[in-house]
């Protein structure tokens, strides 16, 4: 820890853009499989990357309720986009995961657990996403039980965070106190600076592992001007949030508002499709599927992402507990902004705005919270 704080307190470094590839190479040389932003299907998607050419150079996005558009025009920036439809959740808490397999022989069973996962390095984790990972850590690592599947992935992961040089149209990390600058939870944190002919990354080292990687790369201590330039970018990002959410007394407000007429209003629009839960970087709910082979000698237990928006989610003998759309939306939003606080000590929302962008009808959690606060049953 002493070492970490030494690096934390030490002045930032500068990594020139032409040496970004060296960062990727240094990580791969250490045995990491690299996951970073790529452009696929007209969206930024976190996937395997090998070289700087795989990154979304010059791509920017426009986001609003129910809208995501990728556009060129960002010049040479590698990280000119904002929150993408996927989060890192899919790599730490995979959407489909085999838990174990039972093999039947002579009337008894042998239970085999799953293979250990690969070592991953995440390149381009946004500050809000760091907070989302920390929130899932509380669910899977710091509660009564530890999930060894999550732990095996999480323990090995190397995190290169990238501070946000721009705010998306549905971003509200400033409200949630989760960005736009990474404070902790990374091995390296970069701020990308493009200024005329200059293109460099201001690098903060967050761990001994991060320091070890930096030693392999051409770098120099950052000058005053370079630090100020990066700070100015982040100040500008913080000032241009697309959304805001008043968190003052929010938990208590929602605990008081179970009977609010606003739930009827939002239920009239909500399709209960569950998109918000799939794109959310903190939503952790899962279901189990049991699969058998045709001979009946092999049974596999598979864990899959689930959504509190389905009827099955709350089904017990006799029927579903939450049979109406309004009770399911209420469960989701109240969990994010109220009950989560009592369960895990923080909001279950990091202000990434994905649920707003990817809602097919553009339901906006910040707008719904404000409407409840205003005590108004009418849409704004």
């Amino acid at each position, binding site marked *: 820890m002493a070492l970490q704080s030494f690096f934390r307190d030490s002045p930032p470094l500068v990594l020139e853009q032409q040496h970004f590839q060296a960062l990727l190479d240094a990580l791969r040389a250490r045995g990491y499989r690299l996951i970073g932003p790529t452009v696929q299907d007209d969206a930024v998607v976190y996937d395997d990357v090998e070289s700087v050419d795989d990154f979304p150079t010059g791509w920017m996005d426009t986001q609003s309720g129910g809208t995501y558009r990728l556009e060129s025009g960002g010049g040479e920036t590698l990280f000119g986009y904002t929150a993408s439809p996927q989060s890192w959740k899919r790599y730490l808490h995979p959407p489909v995961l085999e838990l174990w397999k039972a093999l039947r022989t002579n009337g008894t069973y042998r239970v085999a657990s799953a293979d250990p996962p690969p070592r991953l390095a995440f390149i381009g984790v946004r500050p809000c996403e760091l907070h989302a990972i920390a929130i899932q850590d509380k669910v899977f690592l710091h509660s009564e*039980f530890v999930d060894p599947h999550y732990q095996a992935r999480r323990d090995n992961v190397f995190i290169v965070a990238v501070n946000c040089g721009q705010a998306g149209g549905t971003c509200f990390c400033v409200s949630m106190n989760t960005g736009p600058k990474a404070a902790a939870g990374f091995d390296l944190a970069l701020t990308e600076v493009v200024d005329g002919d200059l293109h460099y990354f201001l690098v903060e080292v967050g761990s001994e592992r991060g320091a070890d990687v930096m030693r392999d790369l051409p770098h120099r201590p950052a000058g005053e001007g370079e630090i100020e330039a990066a700070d100015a970018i982040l100040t500008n990002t913080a000032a241009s949030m697309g959304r805001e959410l008043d968190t003052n007394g929010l938990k208590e407000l929602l605990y008081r508002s179970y009977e609010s007429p606003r739930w009827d209003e939002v239920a009239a629009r909500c399709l209960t499709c569950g998109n918000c839960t799939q794109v959310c970087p903190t939503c952790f709910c899962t*279901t189990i599927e049991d699969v058998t082979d045709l001979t009946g000698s092999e049974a596999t237990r598979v864990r899959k992402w*689930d959504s509190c928006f389905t009827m099955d989610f709350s089904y017990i003998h006799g029927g579903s507990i939450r049979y109406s759309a309004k*009770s399911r939306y209420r469960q989701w939003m109240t969990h994010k902004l109220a009950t989560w606080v009592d369960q895990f000590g923080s909001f279950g929302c990091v202000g990434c705005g994905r649920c707003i962008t990817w809602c097919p009808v553009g339901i906006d959690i910040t707008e719904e919270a404000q409407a409840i606060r205003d005590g108004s049953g009418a849409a704004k």
Partner: protein
Amino acid sequence: MVEQLLTQPRTTTDPMLPNLFRIHRVLKESYDTFTVELVSLEGYQTFPFAPGQFNMLYVFGVGEIPISISGDPLHPETLVHTTRAVGTVTKAMRELKPGDVIGVRGPFGSAWPVKEARGADVVFVAGGIGLAPLRSSLYHILSQREKYGKIVLLYGCRSPEDILFRKELEKWRARFDLEIFVTVDYANSRWHGNVGVVTKLIPKAPFDPLNTVAMVCGPEVMMRFTAIELVKRGVNPENVYLSMERNMKCAVGFCGHCQFGPTFICKNGPVYPYSQIQSWLSMWEV
């Protein structure tokens, strides 16, 4: 795959991996309820649990469900579960034969307040299959009978055919230190007992409301009105305990299904003091 023979105590701590048990026997309790008795296959001689806790029982290739333990905590060498055959897993479980292998994870969750109830009267209020999770507590308390005041069991069923553990109830009824009152929703011509909901038994039941711990298990609506009736009679809401049920996939706080207000029934429950969940019980679709 990393294969692991589960014939010895496990070294791993994966809470999702089942322990292997063998069916000792399957007892038919009523036309739609049954009890499974399990013994460990992995060399564990005993399976300690607290009355009120539950296990996740896994039928190979079919699925896994939470079921409260209905056996005697003083005899943890056999794991006993009683349930109603209503779903895919319970129907498959009913068909299992002695010797068949079943997966067990647990025990999980909170327990009935058997220690806290010492020195007090104890009122059990059961609805239908809800008697099963209470039976472990009854066994415990009867084994230390002298430590408790009056013991009363109020039991409500749909019909006389639905009465669970009938022989055991008759045996207990013969004791002079335990009072049992049974009521049914629908009676046949051979029934000479009470007819009506179980809450109707509360006003006249012989216990001292100011020194009573109540343990309640049954359908949610039954528990809600039982708790209201007990409090009306003067029992402190902090001394009324309910065993809650929700959909559950993991039992260890990962799957999110069993949330009830700010709590997880698998970790904070299933047994809650009424005072803690009173406001949530009266709300719709929580």
